[in-house]
Every structure is written in C-alpha cells, then in structure tokens.
C-alpha cells in the first residue's frame, strides 16, 4: 500500500498508521516500511534548472503571494510504502488483511506504537523491559513469549547484539528462569555488578564457570554417552577406535578406577591394533591437555548440582566463559555442557533451561543445530542464537525461529539471508533494518504478536565487558 505524506506530517520508517474507513466501520493497521519522494510530475525539470557554468547560480525569488511555498510543499511530498498488518474492527484487533479501505472516505493518522502495543496485548504477562519505541514510549515484552521458543539476535558488528542479549538474560533471570550462556568473549561475567563494580540486584544469581579454572569435572561425573559424544563429535575419533574406547571405559568403570591416570594406563596396556591405540592416545591427551578433566574431586564442580541449586533458588544464570579456551577445547567443553543439559532435562531434574549461544558456529557441531531446534526443544532447552554472521545460521533455523531481533545490517547478502525467516516479511526486514542506528532493533515474532516494532534498546546498569579493546585509546588520542 502506498500513501502520500506531506511535509510536516511526522512519519518515520517503522512507524504504524491507522487507516480508518468510517463507512466500512473498520480500520487497517499498516506499517511504514519505506519513505521515498513522491514522483511529482515535472520534478526532474525543476531539479535540472542548472546552468552550463561551473559556478553556483545564486538567486532570489520575488514571490509576494508566497506561491513558491506551495510549490516546494508539493516537491517535498513523500510516498510512504506500507505493509498491512491487521484490522481493527468491533473494538478488537484481527490479523485480517483481506480488505482495502476506501481511498475517498478513509482518514489516515499515525498509530503510536504505545497504542498498538496495548491493542495487541504485547505487554501482558511477565514483562522484560526492552527500552523505548520510536516515539520514546516504554516497551516491554512478555518473557512467556520467549519460553519454549527459538530466538535469533543478529546484526552487524557494533550494533548492540550482546547488549540486547544481556538484557534478555537479565529479564529472564529476574522472572526466575535458569539460563546458561555460552560466553565466547567473556562479556557476561559481570552482569551482577554495577558499572562502578558494586553488587547489583542480581548479585548471587550469576555463576561464572571458566573451563580449566573453576570449571573442571572428573570422569566419574561424566557419563559414557557424554564422553563418547566428545570423542566422536569434538575430537573426531573414528568408529573402530571409539568401540575400543567404550570397552576400556566400561572396564575401568567396573573396576572403580575411572580416572584420567588409569584411563591413560589402560589405553597403553589394551590389546588392540597399534593405529587404534594411537588414535585413542591422541584423543586422551587432548582431554588431558584441555585441563577440563581432573582426577581431583576437590577441584571438580558438580555442574548438575549447580544447575539444580540455581533452579531451586528462583533462577539464575550460569555463564560458561569460553574466552580463554582454545577452539578445540571449546568444542570439548560445549559438547560436555550440552550433553549434561540434555541428560538433566531428559530426567526432569530441571523443568527448562534458556540457552544463550554467542557465535555458536564456532563451537557447535553441524548436526547439533537441528537437534537444538527440533529435539532439544521438547526436552525444555530453549535456545537464543546471537551472531553477526547470519549466514552461519542454517536456513531451517531461521524458518523455525519464533522471535527474531534484527539490528542494523547493510550488506545485501546478509539482509537476504535474514529475510528468509518465516516470521519476517522480507520487504519489511530489508527496508527497515538497513537504516537502523546502533542500539535500535527491529523485533519480529511472537514477542510482538507479529507486529514488527522498532525498539531503542535501553542502557544496562551493569559492568559491561563487551567493548573492543583499542590500542590508540590508551594513548588518549
């Protein structure tokens, strides 16, 4: 739908219009997805009144009747390209787009996002304060609309993805949810501190686990299935070797000797092909050198116990700080954590976990994506993927995403990828997202009842860790 707008009518890209057809006793809700200059007849001639000389020709208009203001008014007429998103009839909102209001009898006015939010019931339930709308009115989303859902936060570097992600983590924790964050850059480690470094209201709700430091586990705490997933998926152990390793593990388990030391000795003594032994040894040393496994019970952590305590204490977040972990070890840790989560959830030890994964393609194996969005959802693991490379998330993940938080993108290829999401109208996403300033986000999906809304994300009162460290900053330049 295209609507003419005259100078002085304050309309922004992403804003909503209410087109009331009094005769039909209905009103249409349309979102402005693009603003262009109207193709006014003769406009090119007007603009091309340029001379054959290099100098700018200064001039004056002796226009006592002030007709020029009308001419300029026409020149500045804009064309609003709109998308129809719903109908208001009999006091209620319906997602019905099968009619068109009268061109003659309809009145068009801006629909403040605040009114739309109220009309669509976006703020009901457990509120998470996201920030403000384009008209500076507050906007909250319902935490229940993140529950059981698959979410994606994407945008180019420096637009505020992690900031938004932290906001959601804090919002969920506030409502008692248990959150696990795979923190690639150590950005979430101080969410329980104020910018000045003092404790905030979340203090005690956040547990930062750094692999090889305060996050180590013993082989006793590790199920065979978990260790086999690590060996197979993270360390690429071939099938024959995996079979032998399984025998060794069971042997040690029966003997009550399941330690790293005994495992190494057993591989050394095991009657098997030398190639198989070599393969097992190389993986064994990878496990040892990751420093993630330990034989010392005192330095190991009861991950399951920590999760259960967090859940019982009214929610909290466990931050897996992967910032100082090598890519190979990262895969080992993540594989272990996810296997553990799956195990805990499948045994109903915890009702549900919200998983936040930053740049997941750097540590999630290929086959895991589908697993997360299909199977794991039913166990109660609800993922939020955060990335600045939208092509690293599979198309089927986009198609199944329930909520998408889009920050600025200008790259056509990136825009094309995000526009594939089932809940995104491609035209809306491409047109609005490319003009979003930093810390503005286009929210799509169930959290906004499928009305795309541009949100200015609120600042966080926490000690942020996500800024890029710069060389010249130190020199005070």
């Amino acid at each position: 739908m295209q609507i003419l707008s005259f100078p002085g009518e304050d309309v922004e890209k992403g804003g909503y219009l209410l087109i009331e057809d009094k005769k039909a006793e209905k009103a249409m809700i349309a979102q402005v997805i693009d603003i262009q200059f109207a193709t006014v007849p003769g406009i090119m001639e007007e603009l091309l009144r340029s001379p054959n000389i290099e100098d700018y020709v200064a001039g004056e208009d002796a226009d006592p009747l002030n007709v020029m203001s009308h001419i300029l008014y026409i020149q500045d007429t804009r064309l609003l390209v709109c998308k129809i998103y719903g109908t208001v009839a009999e006091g209620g909102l319906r997602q019905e787009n099968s009619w068109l209001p009268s061109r003659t009898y309809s009145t068009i006015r801006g629909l403040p996002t605040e009114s739309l939010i109220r009309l669509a019931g976006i703020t009901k339930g457990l509120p998470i304060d996201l920030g403000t709308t384009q008209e500076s009115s507050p906007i909250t989303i319902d935490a229940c609309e993140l529950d059981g859902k698959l979410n994606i936060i994407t945008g180019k570097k420096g637009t505020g993805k992690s900031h938004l992600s932290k906001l959601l983590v804090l919002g969920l924790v506030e409502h008692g949810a248990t959150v696990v964050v795979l923190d690639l850059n150590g950005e979430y480690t101080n969410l329980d501190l104020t910018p000045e470094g003092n404790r905030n209201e979340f203090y005690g709700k956040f547990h930062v686990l750094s692999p090889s430091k305060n996050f180590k586990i013993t082989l006793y705490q590790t199920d065979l299935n978990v260790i086999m997933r690590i060996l197979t998926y993270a360390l690429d152990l071939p099938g024959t070797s995996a079979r032998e390793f399984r025998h060794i593990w069971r042997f040690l388990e029966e003997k009550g000797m399941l330690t790293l030391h005994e495992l190494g000795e057993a591989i050394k003594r095991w009657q098997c092909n030398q190639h198989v032994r070599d393969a097992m040894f190389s993986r064994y040393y990878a496990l040892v050198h990751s420093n993630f496994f330990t034989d010392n019970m005192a330095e190991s952590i009861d991950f399951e116990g920590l999760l259960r305590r967090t859940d019982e204490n009214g929610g909290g977040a466990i931050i897996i700080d992967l910032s100082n972990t090598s890519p190979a070890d990262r895969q080992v840790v993540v594989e272990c954590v996810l296997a553990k989560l799956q195990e805990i959830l499948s045994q109903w030890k915890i009702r549900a976990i919200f998983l936040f994964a930053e740049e997941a393609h750097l540590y999630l194996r290929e086959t895991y994506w589908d697993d997360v969005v299909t199977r794991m959802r039913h166990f109660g693991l609800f993922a939020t993927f955060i990335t600045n490379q939208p092509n690293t998330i599979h198309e089927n993940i986009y198609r199944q995403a329930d909520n998408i938080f889009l920050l600025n993108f200008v790259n056509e290829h990136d825009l094309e990828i995000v526009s594939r999401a089932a809940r995104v109208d491609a035209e809306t996403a491409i047109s609005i997202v490319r003009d979003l300033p930093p810390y503005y986000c286009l929210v799509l999906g169930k959290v906004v009842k499928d009305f795309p809304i541009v949100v200015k994300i609120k600042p966080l009162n926490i000690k942020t860790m996500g800024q890029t460290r710069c060389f010249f900053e130190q020199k005070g330049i």
Partner: protein
Amino acid sequence: MLVIQQLHYGATSRYNFPPDVEELELPEKLVEVSLGSMLNVKGRHFQPCEVEFAPPFPEKSTTDELLDLPVKSFSTLLTPLKPIQDGTPIVGIDVSSIRIGETESGIICAVRGAVVWNEKRHYKFLRIGPFPFHITEENKTRIFSELGQNPSSGLSLGISTPTETQRRLCNLVEKRVQTSISGTASKSIILWDGSLTAGVPGNPVNTVSQSLALARRNLNSVLAFSKSTTLRFLGWRITEIVSSHEPPCLLEIEDLPLSVSKTVHLLGKIYTVKLTPNGCSFRLDIDRSLRQEQAIVAVEKLLGNEILFQGYPETLRLAHIYSTFTANDVLGIQSFLALEYGLKLITRHNIRRTLFGPYATGIED
C-alpha cells in the same frame, strides 16, 4: 552528480549589479493586477488543467509576420565579429505563462518572470512571481489596460482564444519587466527574448519605444534574440543564409520599412547572427536608434563577455529556464489557488480524451 533534494534558494550575496527587488517596482503592480483579477474567483468551481497533458512550455508569440523579403532588402554586408572582453554586464529577461485551469467564466493563468545578470561570468537570477490571473471576457480589457495595453490602440480585444489571451498577458508582463530593467541597468547589454516588433497584441508600440528609450538613456544596448523567424528571402529562412558563413558574424537585412502595416512597427534593425562554429543562427533585432557601429560593438561585447551555448547567450537561456513552469509548479499553484481562494476543484471533462482515449492528441483551447 545531482542530488535529489529540496532546492536551496540561497540569499543573494551583494554584487553591485542586480538591483533590489523594491527598486524594480515590479511586483507591486503585478500583485495589484493579479489580486484584482482574482477578486471574483473565490468559492468558484475550478477545473485544473491535467498536468501531464498541459503543454509544458507554451512559447510566447513574437509577431505573426509572414514576410518574404524583397531582393533589394538584402545586404551583402556581412560583418565578421571580434569579441570585446571588457566586463560589460549582460542582463537577460524572459517571462513565461501557463494555463492553470478554468472557471465557469474564464481561465486562470500564471505568469512568472526571470531576470538573469551576468557580470564577469558570475551569474545571478531574480524570479518574479508566479502571479495568478483570472481572466474573463469581462475583466480582460481592464487587466490588459492596467498592464500597459492602450485600450485605444486599435488592437482587437474582442473574442480571442484562451491561448491568445494567455500569450497577450505574458507579453504585457514581459514588457513591464523589460521596462523596469531598462530603467535600472546601466552600461549593460540587455537581452530580450523575441523581436523588437511592436504593435502586435501584447507589444504596445508606446511601451516598447519607451523601454528602448529608457535603456538608451542609461547607456544600455538592447538586443532581442528570436529562436525562430518567419522572415524569408528568396524562399529561404533568413537564419539559413548566415549559416554558411564563418562565425562569428552578423548579416544585416537592410531597408525594411519601419512600419510593416498600419499597426505593426519594427523598432529594431534586423540581423541574422551566428556566434559560434557549431551553434545555431538566430534572428537578432537591435535597437534601431543605435548607430551601426554601436550595434556591432554591442554584439562584440556580448561575444566577449558571455558564455554561449549552441550560439545562444547563457544569460537568456537561464532566464528562460528559471521562468518556465514545470508540471510541479502547476500542481503547486493549483494547490495555492484551492487553499487561498477556496476554489472547488472539479474533474476536468476532457472531451478529446472521452472521445479518443489514448489517441487524444493536441491541445484543447
């Protein structure tokens, strides 16, 4: 690269050459006549012209002379021209009009003038208007008279087509602008669009003569460029004859009588001129009261101080461009009329389009 954005009309920085708008004393009279003509228009029904079908740039009439020149009138004197670059200011004047729509009793036209100054190749412009005029059979004599047409001039003001009325209005406004510039500019070359033929509708002899006299008094030289002419010699258009000569050159057409008919007066000497090698040739009328040498020097000064585009003076070209109405202007003026005068817009019933659909060519009068 041209950025499509709102046009910027910058404040005029102070050069010594363009006079103040107040000094021109133009708008006041035009406002008075324009407002006077619009008095009876309030609340009327108004059929706006369809913008895309309106002729965008209707040309002003020069004269309707259809002269085949006698052999003896043609001079063999071809004057080669040498540019004189002395910083003489050049002033170009042009006025355009367009029909905006119709009421039950008449037509509404808009007129806009443009004056462009060139001093040492720095260009500045002044646009005057647009001024809307509601012209009916009842008020047109008064309007034309107020704009300078002598009612006793003997020129018919009877039934005329809207296009003729519009042209006459445009010419009268143009004469006022020309007179005003003749009185304010000094030691300049003043360029008019058209010829120096007077006594035809919209070109009263008195007004044109006074304007030329005023210009001479201020040491100005008036040159009038016609883009087209109907003057012929042995069947050839006079502008064709000069085309074969080495430019820049001037070819004089001698011995034309001052009065072509009882009413039509040629107040300029007629030349054909070709100023640049790849440019066009034009009919050039130079104030008859200037001596031959003065006339040639004036053209040589133009040659030395002006940028020529296809052999046509840039100052005059700009004046045309700045005065011309675009479809966008028409929409803006229609909007102004509707708001200012409470005109009730009604859809124009285009009989040609009704009858012929997409084959409706030509302009309705």
